[in-house]
């Protein structure tokens, strides 16, 4: 039995009620980071829009991160450091990067040791829906885990029926195209072999119609089908107000867990969907990367931290060797920056730019808190050209570009208006903080 302390979910702002798609500046890692931050703030471990202060980050108690997706951004080169930096966790935490779907996530959850943060992300380019969710596991007796709920493995069936497959090196998923085979010999046999004594409340990884045939009542609809759907399923228990069995399936395999209560701490970062923008893509060369510049900038850039002058405390983004305020070259220390701010100036680029989808908007953002820091960033999550001076928003991790094959992560401005509908009535308590 493990204790699930908190859940966080994230849906990209693009798509429709039928499903979300990733924006041009998102991938499995940025999706996962958003969900993980939501989970940690649901657990009360970080302020939702603010940076985790160093003490708060230390207090998260996270000792291990398990990142489950079928769309790992880097297969060689590791996504671990970017994941930890984006979530705001210390760089000495073990990260497991795992290729897997919904059952793999329940497997990871059922076996998790206290202090494990499970991050599940779906960013498929096959047209299947995108989203991410994260779960924080604590020791059963951890103080401050009000809302914690016990999770126990019910059963697991591991079989092979690769109706959908993608071999290493293949660019796309192949579809064997036999839905009846998949239903009867895949999910059907897997469920039969699980010999559940209790019908599931919710089923992850399968189409809603199939889920309905397996459940006692009408199961809640889930926004994704891959790894993240398993945690969306657990979060959905809160919506239906029920404990019980959660089943996660993927083709011919399935894992079932039982929750002994309704998850209490759930934060959903789920902005209302916008129709994806029609982007013009102009072919271009590989955008060059300087890995020495990348390495020097990494911590400040991915953790959203400025250099604070050791002599006078003035902040500089990016950090400067010589303080502009007092002239000291004695050194600087990284300090978290506020993650909210106001647009100081904005511009929209509509001309074709080789290698970048256009149009896009850029903004200079004056950060909150009187820190006297302005940042030049891209605007995300809204249609290009809709951002005005004075608009408010929050800074979110995005994939700014792919440079010679290397994802280049940084922060973008997510204007507030777009996230208003995040506080849908069906979702939970705590969205105000995320949206502001």
């Amino acid at each position, binding site marked *: 039995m493990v204790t699930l302390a908190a859940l966080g979910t994230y849906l990209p702002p693009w798509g429709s009620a039928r499903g979300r798609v990733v924006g041009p500046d998102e991938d499995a890692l940025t999706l996962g980071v958003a969900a993980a931050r939501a989970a940690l703030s649901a657990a009360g471990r970080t302020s939702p829009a603010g940076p985790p202060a160093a003490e708060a980050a230390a207090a998260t108690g996270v000792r291990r991160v398990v990142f489950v997706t079928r769309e790992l951004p880097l297969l060689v080169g590791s996504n671990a450091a970017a994941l930890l930096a984006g979530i705001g966790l210390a760089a000495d935490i073990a990260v497991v990067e795992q290729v897997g779907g919904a059952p793999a996530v329940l497997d990871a959850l059922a076996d998790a040791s206290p202090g494990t943060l499970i991050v599940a992300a779906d960013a498929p380019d096959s047209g299947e829906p995108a989203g991410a969710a994260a779960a924080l596991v604590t020791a059963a007796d951890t103080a401050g885990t009000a809302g914690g709920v016990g999770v126990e493995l019910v059963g697991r069936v591991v079989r092979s029926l690769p109706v959908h497959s993608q071999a290493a090196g293949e660019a796309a998923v192949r579809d064997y195209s036999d839905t009846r085979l998949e239903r009867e010999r895949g999910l059907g046999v897997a469920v039969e072999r699980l010999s559940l004594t209790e019908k599931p409340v919710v089923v992850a990884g399968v189409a809603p119609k199939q889920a309905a045939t397996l459940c006692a009542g009408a199961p809640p609809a889930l926004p994704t089908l891959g790894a993240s759907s398993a945690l969306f399923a657990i979060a959905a228990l809160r919506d239906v107000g029920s404990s019980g069995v959660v089943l996660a399936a993927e083709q011919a395999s399935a894992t079932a867990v039982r929750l002994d209560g309704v998850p209490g701490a759930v934060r959903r970062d789920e902005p209302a969907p916008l129709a994806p923008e029609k982007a013009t893509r102009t072919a271009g060369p590989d955008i060059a990367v300087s890995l020495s510049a990348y390495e020097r900038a990494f911590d400040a850039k991915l953790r959203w931290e400025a250099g604070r002058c050791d002599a006078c405390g003035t902040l500089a983004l990016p950090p400067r060797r010589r303080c502009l305020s007092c002239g000291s070259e004695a050194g600087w220390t990284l300090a978290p920056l506020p993650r909210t701010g106001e647009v100081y*100036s904005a511009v929209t680029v509509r001309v074709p730019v*080789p290698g970048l989808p256009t149009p896009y908007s850029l903004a200079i953002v004056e950060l909150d808190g009187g820190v006297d820091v302005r940042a030049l960033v891209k605007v995300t999550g809204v249609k290009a050209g809709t951002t005005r001076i004075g608009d408010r928003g929050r800074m979110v991790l995005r994939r700014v570009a792919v440079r010679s094959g290397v994802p280049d992560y940084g922060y973008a401005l997510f204007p507030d208006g777009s996230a208003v509908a995040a506080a849908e009535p069906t979702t939970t308590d705590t969205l105000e903080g995320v949206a502001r």
Partner: protein
Amino acid sequence: MRRVAVVGAGMTAFGEHFGLGIKDLLPMAVSEMAAHVDKGLDRADIQAAWFGELTTTDGFPSGILADTCGLLDIPVTRVENACATGNDAVRNATFAVASGAFDVVLVVGADKVRESSARATFWEWAGLTRDMAWDYPLGLVAPANFALHVARYLHESPATR
């Protein structure tokens, strides 16, 4: 300081000039300048040259100017100062004459942009103008750069579009 005068000027047409390299364009402009000096110019009177060029093409700029225009055995200096490059070349040459160091100097401004594929040129120039880690991939094209300033100026001042 002595007063300084411009005594001749010449230029090539603006264009992509696929058929002409920087080594063609430089002597063309210098010859047109020489032809426009009242009472003529003895090129041997040129004592120094300043060359404003933002990006290098076909080699180090000072040497290319000296080599293609026959300006051997005199100081030739390349100046780069972003959009103010040409003006800054004029300023430095003016100081040299005003100070009395030289009596006759040459100023040339040239850039041969279209020497790589249209797709590649943008990112080559971005590499020249932006911080490699923080700004380079944002796609801050030059007009957008100035537009950010202008948008804020319009916001704060009574100016209108």
